[in-house]
C-alpha cells in the first residue's frame, strides 16, 4: 500500500508537469508545421492511419485524399469524373492540398468541387449546412461517378455517409 501510495504521489507530481510541458512541444510542432504547404496523408507516418476508399453506392465512392496516381486510377478503373473535397479551407495545409487536387484534376480532365467541412467538431451546425448543399449537388449530378474524400478518409466522410443515408441517397447496406 505504501509503495502504491508513493507511486500515486509520484504520478500526481509528474503528470501535470508532463502535460504542461507537452503544450510547448505541441506549439513547436504546429509552428514548424505552419511552414509546410503540404502535409500529405499518403506519406508515412500518416499513411499508417489513413482510411481506405470504398463505394457507398453505384455512383459514389468515399475515401481519403488521393494523390495524382490514385486520381488517375479512380478515373480509369472506376470511371470517376467528379472529385468532391471535404477539406477545410481554414487549415493552410488542407487548403494547399485542395489547390493541388484542382490542378491534378484539370490535368486528368476531372471536375473538382469543394464542400469544406470543419474537422474540430464534425457535427457542427456549419457542417450540417454544408452537407445539405452537398446533398443538393449530388441530387443534381445525375449518373456521374463521384469520389468524395476528406483528409484521412475517416471522420468527415463517415459524417457525410451518415447524412447521405438519412437523405436516402445511398443505401446503408450497399455492398460492392
Amino acid at each position, binding site marked *: 500500500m505504501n509503495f502504491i501510495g508513493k507511486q500515486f504521489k509520484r504520478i500526481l507530481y509528474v503528470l501535470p508537469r508532463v502535460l504542461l*510541458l507537452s503544450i510547448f512541444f505541441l506549439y513547436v510542432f*504546429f509552428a514548424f508545421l505552419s511552414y509546410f504547404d503540404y502535409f500529405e496523408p499518403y506519406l508515412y507516418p500518416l499513411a499508417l492511419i489513413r482510411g481506405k476508399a470504398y463505394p457507398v453506392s453505384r455512383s459514389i465512392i468515399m475515401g481519403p485524399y488521393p494523390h495524382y496516381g490514385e486520381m488517375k486510377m479512380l478515373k480509369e478503373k472506376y470511371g470517376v469524373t467528379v472529385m468532391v473535397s471535404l477539406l477545410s479551407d481554414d487549415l493552410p495545409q488542407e487548403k494547399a492540398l485542395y489547390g493541388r487536387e484542382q490542378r491534378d484534376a484539370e490535368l486528368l480532365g476531372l471536375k473538382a468541387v469543394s464542400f469544406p467541412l470543419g474537422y474540430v467538431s464534425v457535427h457542427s451546425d456549419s457542417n450540417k449546412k454544408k452537407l445539405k448543399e452537398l446533398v443538393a449537388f449530388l441530387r443534381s449530378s445525375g449518373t456521374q461517378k463521384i469520389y468524395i474524400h476528406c483528409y484521412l478518409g475517416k471522420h468527415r466522410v463517415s459524417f457525410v455517409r451518415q447524412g447521405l443515408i438519412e437523405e436516402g441517397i445511398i443505401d446503408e447496406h450497399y455492398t460492392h
Partner: protein
Amino acid sequence: MLELLSDFLLGFQVVIFIYFIVINGIYTFFTLISLKDIRLHAQTVTNQNIKNILSGIFYKPLSIVVPAYNEEETIVANIRSLLALHYPEFEVIVVNDGSKDATLERMLAEFRLVKIDKPFRLILSHEHIVDSYISVDYPHLLVIDKKNGGKADALNAGINAAKFPLFCCIDADSLLEHDALLRASRLFVEDREVIATGGIVRVLNGCTVEEGIVNEVRAPKKSMECFQAVEYMRGFFSGRTSWNFFGSLLIISGAFGIFRKDMVMAIEGYRHTVGEDMDLVVRLHKHCKDKKIRYKIVFVPDPVCWTQVPSDIPSLLKQRNRWHRGLIDSLWFNKEMFMNPKYGTVGLIGYPYFVFVEALGPMIEFLGYFGFIIFYLFGFISRDFAFLFFAVAIVWGMWINLGSILLDNLIYLRYKGIKDILKLCMYGLMEFLGYRQLIVMERLLATFQFWKKGWGKAKRQEIKSELHRKTV
C-alpha cells in the same frame, strides 16, 4: 456569438503577442542600460578604492550571518572561505537551524568549537537557542545552535547575535570572492543613505575550489547547471543592474547581501516566508518611503558570490517553485505599494513589473503557447503570424541570452577558456527550446500553490575536501 468568440480569441492572441514584444523589448533595453551602468561603475571603483578600505582607514565592521540547515556537505568549505575574506573587522555567525544531519558535528570537529554561555538580545523573534559556541582557533567565529524555524528565523537569530552595524547574509552553499565584502560594503562608507547592497551571484558548479577559494572558473558540466549559469548571467547582468539604475531594486539575493542592521531591526527582521530575501527588500523600501527616510538600495556588479545550483531536475523544480511562491507571497503582503505614487518608481514601475512580468508572466506565456495551438487548429494562424510569433517568443530571447553571455564575458572576463564561453553560448541558444518552458511550467504550477509554505530542500554536492583540489 461564434464571431464574437473568435474576435475575442484573436484579440487575446494579439495581447499575448504584444506581451512577448514588451518582455523581450524590456530585456533588450535592460541589457543596453546595464552596459552603460556597468561601464560607469568600473570607472569609479578602482583597485585604489578597495585598497583604501583594506588599509582600515574607511570601513564599517560587519557580521556575516550564515543560516545552515542540513549543510554537512558544504558548511566547512563555506566557513573556511568566509574566514579567509579580506576585510579589516568582521565576525562570522553560523546559525545551525536544527539540522538533522552532521552539520553541527562537522563544525565542532573542524573549528574546535567550545560552548559559551553568552546572552543574546531578543529584539527579533526566533525559535529557542539551544547552545552557542565560539571557535578556539578563530575567535571571530560564532556558532549558534537553535531549534528549526526556517531560514528567516535563523537569520533573525543571527542578526540578534550580531555585534556590528552591518550584517551580510550568505547561503551555506555559497562562496564569496576574497574582496567581495570590501567591494559590496564600500558604498556604506561612501554614502550614508545606502541601507542595503547586493552583488552578483554566479554558478559555482564546474569551478575548481581550493581552500574555500574559487581559483579556476569553468562552465558547469551538466546541462541543467549550464542553463542555470546562463539564467544567472542574464538575470544579474541586465535585470538587477537595470533595476538599480531606476532605483527600484526589489531583490537582493539571499545568497549574498549586506544590510544596515538598524534598518532591518526597524522592520522586525525577516518575515517567515519562503521568499524572505525579496520580502525583506520590498519591506525596506516600504518602511523608508512610509517614514520619509532618504535611502538607497543598490546592486553592485563586481562583488561575486559563487553559489551551488541544483544539478537534478526535481531539485531545480522545487527551488523554482519555492522562489515563485515567495515572489507571490511577498507581492501580496506588500500589495498596497502596487501602482501607489507614494512609493515612487518602486510602486509605479518596479512593483507592477514584478506583478505582470514575474508573477503573472508564466501564466501569460503558457496561454500564448496554448492559444497558438488552438488558433492553428481553427485555421486562424497564418504563416506570417507563426513566423512572427516564433521570432518574438523564441528567437529574440535566444539573442538576448547570447548578448548577455558575451557582454558579461567581455566586461568581467570570468570564463577564460573559449570552449567554456562557446558552451555557455550554445546553452543560451538552447534555453528557449525546452528549459525555459520547464521553468515556466513549474512557476505556473507554483502560482496555484502560493499558499504552501514548504521549503523543498535541494540535493547538495560537497564543495571541496579540505586538503585536495576538487572540482564541484
